[in-house]
């Protein structure tokens, strides 16, 4: 089984145990995708984690987009902005960095 800093990940690179997540793991995962995590990335990652904590699911992209716009300003509440941060999809890639399971309904 593959691992990142000792934390087990599945064949798509998602953490198997949500509790294993640390910020360092997110940094290593991002490096693997050639991304240096900026403050903007962390805003989204932290949002995803608190959304999961509250609702026990990862938000659909549509819901994420709306919520980010509400919380961080209209200019950020669109998929173009989110894809510029997470080119493999804010849901899929963002959730992976955040240590969450793949979003429901994500193909």
């Amino acid at each position, binding site marked *: 089984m593959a691992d990142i800093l000792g934390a087990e990940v599945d064949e798509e690179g998602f953490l198997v145990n949500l509790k294993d997540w640390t910020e360092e793991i997110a940094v290593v995962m991002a490096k693997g995708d050639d991304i240096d995590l900026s403050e903007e990335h962390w805003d989204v990652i932290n949002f995803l984690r608190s959304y999961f904590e*509250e609702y026990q699911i990862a*938000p659909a992209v549509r*819901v994420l987009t709306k919520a980010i716009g509400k919380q961080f300003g209209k200019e950020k509440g669109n998929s173009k902005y989110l894809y510029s941060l997470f080119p493999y999809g804010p849901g899929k890639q963002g959730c992976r960095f955040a240590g969450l399971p793949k979003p429901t309904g994500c193909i």
Partner: protein
Amino acid sequence: MATKKFMYLNRKASYGTAYAIESLEVVLIAAAFDQDVSLAFIDDGVYQIVEGQNTDGIGMKNFSKTFHALGDYDINKLYVSAESLVERGLTADDLMSLVYEDEDDDWAEKPSVKIVSNAELTKIMSDQDVCLSF
């Protein structure tokens, strides 16, 4: 893609079987495809949206929290059988307060849960394109 009216019937309590959580997963997927989704809670299904659930003792995820996200997915028609509540000694006050923001009314918070008689529920069901029972 044409929009269809989907109703998901929830008949079982949350944690004894996988029906309840599987239903909720399918509901979220249908919503991701922009369909007209409604839920009905009948028989022991009414227990799914009872307030104050705690799963610490059984080591399972407390997915009752997820019902609070449904409003964000434009799922705001949650029908609860009045008869099923009465049979179990429950009232509207025992249920979670589930709300949605009405886009057409300046994002005012409105309740998503509606308690209806079985006769009314029958009418609502006959108005659907698809009913899926869990």
